[in-house]
């Protein structure tokens, strides 16, 4: 720490150059923070779906191919299956087409299987008793200022009602909270209402979710379930919910690849840039480093000083960049609410960021530091 003023002095020697380099580090880590924030939001959603005790049965041809409701009873008879429920993607908009809402029609046992969603016993009871009842996520309710008791008209995305109208009116009977506000962006209504009122699609569900007792039996149970529909017009594929999530979010896995590619390019450019700055800075200061060595600074001390200088530069810029990313996410969340697929720039991102900063600083400082360490005092003093 007593050497800090030396390192700081070195950085402040060319203020414009340091500021410029710092700015590029800030920009790189601002981008890093934002991308990580989006990335961690998606991983979190994927993980929350991935419980070891859950299987998901969907049509082989995809989530949008309906399955017959009669399958539910059959699945229930498969040994190892404890609870079965169904989910059907409904989808809708509220008030204007851009207000998309993720609406799902759910089977009877839905709440048994989704204990991470917290709702009151009263809400649960009301849902069981109200044909047009809907349970909305707390974040979604906040977004549209909904209260329990409100009647809300939702314009269906796919399914018209008998008679042709696309407008479905639901009664809000409760709200649920989730550990992850991202998952509070959904609303659930009774599949039985769907089955009664829809013009088509009656007697079908989107996919089934099973709770199993023994995760080790997952493979065998899945096979048995799929065997129920083999050679039928609706063959199924049953997966653990984490495998399913991986499939479902594969579009975001690609996103992850792109993100990594972008960050790779950005960091690479950053290293070239900062590396060049450091090389220049050390070349310019050769006589000063020679003086330090003359005074008795060891080779290792000189090496450390230069490395510390480049690490400090990247740490400063990086911290500033992440702070900025955090502020940006904060502002965006304030404007768009929790529908924003971004998590606050917090612990894990800071940790990964800090590791990246130190690593970049060390890599970038390595060559100049070695040069400083190896310089011959006598030659440097003579300007050779």
């Amino acid at each position: 720490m007593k050497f800090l003023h030396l390192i700081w002095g070195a950085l402040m020697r060319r203020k414009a150059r340091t500021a410029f380099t710092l700015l590029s580090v800030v920009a790189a880590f601002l981008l890093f923070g934002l991308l990580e924030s989006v990335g961690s939001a998606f991983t979190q959603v994927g993980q929350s779906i991935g419980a070891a005790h859950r299987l998901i049965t969907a049509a082989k041809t995809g989530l949008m191919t309906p399955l017959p409701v009669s399958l539910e009873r059959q699945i229930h008879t498969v040994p190892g299956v404890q609870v079965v429920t169904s989910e059907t993607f409904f989808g809708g908009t509220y008030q204007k087409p851009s207000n998309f809402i993720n609406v799902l029609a759910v089977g009877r046992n839905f709440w048994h299987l989704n204990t991470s969603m917290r709702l009151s016993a009263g809400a649960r009871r009301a849902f069981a008793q109200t044909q047009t009842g809907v349970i909305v996520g707390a974040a979604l309710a906040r977004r549209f200022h909904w209260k329990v008791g409100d009647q809300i008209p939702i314009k269906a995305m796919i399914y018209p009602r008998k008679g042709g109208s696309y407008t479905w009116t639901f009664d809000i009977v409760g709200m649920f909270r989730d550990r992850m506000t991202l998952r509070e962006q959904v609303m659930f209504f009774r599949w039985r209402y769907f089955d009664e009122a829809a013009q088509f699609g009656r007697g079908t569900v989107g996919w089934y979710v099973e709770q199993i007792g023994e995760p080790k039996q997952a493979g065998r149970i899945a096979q048995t379930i799929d065997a129920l529909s083999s050679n039928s017009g609706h063959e199924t594929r049953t997966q653990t919910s984490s495998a399913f999530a991986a499939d479902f979010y594969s579009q975001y896995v690609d996103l992850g690849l792109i993100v990594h590619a972008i960050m790779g390019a950005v960091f690479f450019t950053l290293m070239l840039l900062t590396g060049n700055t450091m090389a220049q800075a050390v070349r310019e200061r050769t006589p000063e480093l020679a003086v330090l060595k003359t005074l008795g600074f060891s080779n290792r001390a000189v090496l450390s000083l230069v490395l510390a200088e480049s690490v400090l530069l990247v740490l400063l810029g990086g911290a500033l960049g992440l702070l900025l990313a955090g502020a940006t996410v904060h502002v965006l969340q304030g404007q768009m609410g929790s529908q924003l697929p971004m998590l606050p720039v917090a612990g894990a991102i800071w940790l990964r960021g800090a590791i990246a900063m130190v690593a970049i600083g060390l890599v970038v400082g390595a060559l100049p530091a070695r040069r400083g360490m190896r310089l011959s005092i006598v030659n440097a003093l003579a300007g050779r």
Partner: protein
Amino acid sequence: MSALVEIRSLSKVYQRGRQRIEVLHHIDLEVAPGEFVALMGPSGSGKTTLLNLIGGLDSPTEGTLAVAGERIDRLGQGALARWRATHVGFVFQFYNLLPMLSAQRNVELPLLLTKLSGSQRRRNAGVALQLVGLADRATHKPGELSGGQQQRVAIARAIVSDPTLLVCDEPTGDLDRQSAEDVLTLLQRLNREHGKTIVMVTHDPKAAEHAGRILQLDKGTLVQSEQAVA
């Protein structure tokens, strides 16, 4: 064993590509404790090379070199660095202060390698600046000081860790007459009042007059040694 610096048959050869340049040829020299020696000679005669060897900045090719009884020609790079930190102070022609640091911080530099606390370092640096008459310029950066003042700061830095030996390479080479005189008087005072042993390279006969003994180096050989008038 009464000499502070004891040089026996010292040679220095530089290898430049295939070319062997023998800069110093079998130099023998003793400097007694408390002596002020001026080293003169034409440009390229090897003065800086000899001074750098005495100060432990470089190692000889042949011969022995002892300072205060310690064979510094046998020390490795790391040991030599530690030895320099405690035993020698350096003064160069172009001051070689760090431009970003205040005079005070520049003088403190050698003390960063000691176990002294921050306040002890500040106090010692303050005393050294006082000694060279620049206590009032402690917070100035080198760029805000005249050449003579910068050289005095450099001298304060050279003496702050209280070494027995000062080596000065043309310390007045870049100064006007008056500043040069101030610096030389200061060196003389350090020699007489504080017992510093000084070896000083200079081109200037007037500067050499401040020394107690003048050595002449020519083409890598010491040609004569005389007592100065002063």
